[in-house]
Structures are given as C-alpha cells and as structure tokens.
C-alpha cells in the first residue's frame, strides 16, 4: 500500500508539493514546530510536512484545513477550465487544456491531511473541555478529513478526483449559466 501511495503522490507531484508547502505555511501561521519541510521526497511524508504533535485545538484544525482549502481552491480553478474544455466540450487537441486538467486532478488528489493530524483534531476537539457547538460545527470537517485521509492512504483520492473532474462541469452548469446571464444583462 505504501508503494501505491508513493506512486500516486509522485504521479500528482505538483499537488503533493503544494500541499506540503501549504501545510508548512499553516505550521508557521500557527507557530507549530516543523521538523522537516522538504516538498519533494520519496516516502510517505511526500505532500506533508513533518511537525510536532499539536495539542492546541485551533492549530491542529488549521493545519488540516488551510492546505485543504488552498488545494481545493486551486484545484477547482484548474478544473473549471480543464474539465469543462476537455471533458465536457471535447477540446482534446489542446495540450494546455490537458495540462490544466492534470493540475486540477493533481491538486484535488492531495487535499487531505495525514491520518495522524486528523486524529489529533479529534483528540483536541472531541473532549470534555470543548463546547458542544464547536463539536457540531467541526463534525462535517472532521468527517471529510477522516474519510479523505483514509482514502489517501490507499491512493484512492486519485480515482475520486478523476471522477469528480467528470462530474464537475455538471455542477458548474447549475449556477454558471445564471451568473453568465447576470453579467450579460448588465
């Protein structure tokens, strides 16, 4: 499984490197001590940053959430042009559009934190000291992180992001035409 994991990470290297970079950035923002911040490495820490165990609630959540958010935003932006042009409209002959599609998939494959970080979030949030409201608000995020991290361990996020790339134009179709009409009418 580790080999598959590393192979998937290497296939989606730009996404992995950016995730590691954003995780490092999150560590610096949250003043979390970093052991090793190499963005390219051939082991299970590829796409992640080695840092100390975070015992602060906010910091442990941010370290999972900030790289997720950035990779998601970048990935969706790339897919907006790549998936729409290549997969939906069928512009198969343009290499740049294929590149944008690849970047989108690479970034979405590396959305999730490593499982240890997710478990730290659980430990820090789901305890007696935390208010119920916070627990409820954090629940969907924790669920997404947990499922995503588990999928990522087996390299399955590559498949899910490819599947998402096919579905994404249809999701965009639900609101982009309305936004387009709004701007045209102005």
């Amino acid at each position: 499984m580790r080999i598959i994991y590393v192979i998937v990470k290497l296939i989606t290297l730009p996404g992995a490197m950016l995730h590691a970079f954003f995780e490092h950035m999150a560590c610096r923002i949250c003043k979390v001590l970093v052991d090793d911040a190499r963005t390219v490495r051939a082991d299970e820490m590829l796409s992640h940053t080695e840092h100390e165990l975070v015992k602060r609630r906010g910091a442990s959540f941010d370290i999972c959430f900030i790289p997720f958010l950035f990779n998601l935003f970048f990935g969706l932006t790339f897919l907006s042009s790549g998936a729409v042009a290549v997969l939906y409209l069928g512009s198969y002959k343009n290499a740049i559009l294929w590149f944008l599609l690849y970047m989108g998939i690479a970034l979405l494959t590396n959305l999730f934190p490593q499982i240890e970080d997710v478990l730290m979030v659980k430990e820090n949030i789901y305890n007696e000291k935390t208010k119920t409201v916070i627990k409820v608000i954090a629940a969907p995020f924790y669920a997404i992180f947990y499922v995503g991290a588990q999928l990522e361990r087996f390299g399955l996020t590559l498949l899910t992001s490819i599947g998402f790339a096919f579905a994404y134009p249809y999701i965009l179709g639900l609101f982009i035409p309305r936004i387009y009409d709004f701007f045209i009418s102005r």
Partner: protein
Amino acid sequence: MADENKTPENEASVHDEMEELARIFREELGKAKEEAEKAENEANAEAATDIDALDSGYEVEGYAVTSGEKTNTEPEEMCECCGERPRGTDRDPNSPFCKECAAIMEKYPYDLKGILMLIAVIGALILSLVTFIQITPVFTNVYRGNADYNDKKLYSSLAHYSEAESYIIDNEISLDFKNLRRNEILLFYEFGADEWVEKNFGNPAILCALTLIEKTYGTENIRDKKVAEIFNAITETRANILMLGSYEEEIENDSDYEKLIAKFESLIGKKIYISDVNNMDSTTVFDEMNETLKPSGKETVITYDEGWIRFYQYVLAESQKKTEDMALYLEKASAVSTGYEEYSDLFFARFCLDNKNYSQAETVIKRMGENNSESVVYHALLSKLYRQRDKNYSAAKEVCLTGLEKSAASYKSYDLVAFAGSYLSIEKSLNFIMLKDYESAYSSAEEAVSYQNDFYGSTGPYARDLLAILALATNNTEKYDELAKTVAASVEENGKEYDFSSYVYDYKDNKISLEEIVSSGYFDML
C-alpha cells in the same frame, strides 16, 4: 656461544643499560602520579562548583538537591534537536525542544522547490481563469442546449448550439469543441427526420449532420459509436431513397399497381451495394438484382429498409387513391421504421386527419410531441385536430401561439424552422377566421408572409393568397391592390401558374365565404 660472549666489558654495558631504563621508568611514573593528582584536584573542584550551583537552585543532570542533601535520580532529557540545552519552551514546558531550537523550528525556512512550484501554479492559475472566462459563453450555451435536448426541446437546443457556434466564430476561438459538434450531429439527425420527405438528398438538417461528421470525424473508421451509427443510418437511408426513388417514374405513370406492390415486397431483405459513401449516385449504389453493375467485394453492403419500402408502397397506393392500402402501408411503415418514426408519423397523422380517424390521429400527433415538444409540425397538426374534430378554435389558436412561442428562439438560427413557423401562423390565421376575428387573422397572415420574406426573400402562394383574402375581408383595399399588382407582374413574367388561386377571386366575387374557404382545406399546410 653464550659463554664466549660473557666478558667483563659486556656485563658492564648491560648493567648501564638497565640503569638507564630504570631511570626513565622512574621519571615517567613520577609524571603519571603528578597528572593523576592534578586530575583529582580538578574533579574535586568541579564537584564543588556543581554543589554550589545546586544550592543556588539549578537542576543538574543526575542530581537533585533536597535540604542540602545530595540524592541520585533519573537523568534529565536534553533538547531533541541540539542535545545541549534542556527541553521545554515558554509556551510548552513539555516540548522536546529547547527555547532556541523551537524558535528556529517555528520559522523553519520554506523549501525553494515549493516556492517555485507555487509561483508556477499561480501563473497557470491565471491562464486557467482567462481560459475559463473565454469558454464560459460556449459552456453556458452548450450546457443549456444539452439540457433542452434531453427535455426533447429540440428547437431551443438548436438555438443554444447556434449561439455557441456564433460566439466561437466571432471571437475566433481556435479550440476544437468536439462534443459540441457531436451533440449538433445528434440534434440535426433527429431534426432531419421529418424533413426527408421533401428533400431527399438536399435535406438541410441531414446535410448539416453529414458535413459535421465529415469535418469532425471523417467518413472512415469513425470511433464514436453513436456518430458511426448515425453516419451508417444516413448512408443507408440515402441508399434506400436512391434505389426506391428509381421507381418513382413507374409510380407516376400509373403502372400495374399489383405488380409494382409485389415488386416492392420482393425487395425486402435484398442487398444494396455502396461503392463510394462520399459520392452516392446511380453508378455507386446498386442492388443485387442489377444486371450491369456487380459487386467487387469492397463495397459497403446493406439491405433494403422495410420502413422505406412500406413508405413507397404507401406513395404508390396514394397515387392510385387506394385509401385502405394507404392506411395499411403507413401503419406498417410506422411499425418498422428505424429511427425515422417522425417521418412516417407526419404522413400517418395527416392521413388520419384527412380520413377523420381522429383517435388514431391524436395518438400519432402526441407521439410526435414526445419526440420534440417544440415541433411546429406537432403544434400545427394538433391545432388542426382541435379545429376539425372539436371545432374548438380558441384551443386550436392557443396551440399555435404556444408552438410559435416555443420555436421562436430557433428562428434566428435555423431558417427551416422559420419557414415551418409560417405554417403555424397560417394555421393560427385560419382559427381566427373561424372565431370571426378577421383583424387578428389578417395580422397572422401578415406574420406568415413576414417569416417567409425574412428567410426566403419571397412569399409562398398560400400565405400570399390568404393575406389577399383577408385584406378584402378587412376592407384593406390598398393592401389587396398592392398584392394584385405584384401578382399581375409575376404572371406576366412567369406565366399563369403564378396567379392568385381561384379562392381569392371567388371570395372577391362573393361566391364563397371565409368559413367555406377554411373548411375546404386549401390552406391546411400540413
């Protein structure tokens, strides 16, 4: 030998050597003692310093001080990073790192490769956004076109695809939108179904589909399964029409009816050979009964389509006014038609309406509506059904208005729809006549003329004659005179067949009423 060397001189020299060695040993021993003493003194001095330090409150590895007594404990852990300073920071006393290392690790420098990747990705992100903004109008129109296509709103779908194509051309977008072309092919293919009847080889929609197939996929080894199916279906239909069309002369010449019917019957299952799919004519398309042309083995081989054979049997029955047979063959054509149900349905519905078989007509018309809810043919036939069967002219008029409204968007993009739209305007005008609203009827007739002029540059005889009659009905003599003048000029130039129909003159001479004209069916477009 030993005894020979034992001389007094030798003994003396050995003695001297031994003495020298003893002296060196004593000197070295003295030095070693001095060093040992010195080291012991230093150790004692250091121990004294440590004890002083402990007394002043510091912890030292391996020792703890309680009430001035020295007790041996577990050794204290040093910083995991430097190994020199004790662990713990202000924020986290249990940190495995010392303050100095923690400060460095908090600001661990970013990896250069990561920074470079981020810069590259931001550049690509801008490119992605620009591309997306550029293709958004295409995406919007194609998405809506696809949704309309799935909802069987073929005219709206066509209008959206056309808008996307216009945008691509106007903005000189060089991308190949293969899926857009594919969807257009599917649409034109379905669209062309009810048009085969009038222009077999010149069918505009089918020609559009064929051109797009050739341009996008080529004509050989088409990989897309659906497009390949369509191309084959069009090729087979064209070959069938070409082969069966060769009997049209015999049909027109009132040949032996039974013999010709049997001849058509015998064609079912027979092979047709196509030697060049890109250039289909009587030299490249022939059947297995052909005596001059023989297959070489390289031809595309198909069989006669039973649906088309039944249709030609219907045409033959119609030419000989055999009503029962007409119904029989139309029903059979409808039952076996492969992908061209609309084509048979149009004839079938018209036939049923003409023969007052309204329940059958309603079934067929509704089926047409399911295939394309925006079809002008469907709306025109439904209006005719309401007008003839129910005498419900208001409902019939509303159907026309709905049909015109639904198909309006595609008038801009596809002129054949506009022409069909003129049929609906005429049908609407007939309903207004029956409602005795002649002003509205006149407006509708003008609308029909306008459609035809806008897209064909000329007016068809039916729209022109209806307008002339309604100009008389509404006392618009100026308009009637204008039309009469144009017609007179046309007759002078082209002959008497360009004159008004007898209904115009009869109405002018008060020989026939407007209601009688409508009931005659002369102005029924479908």
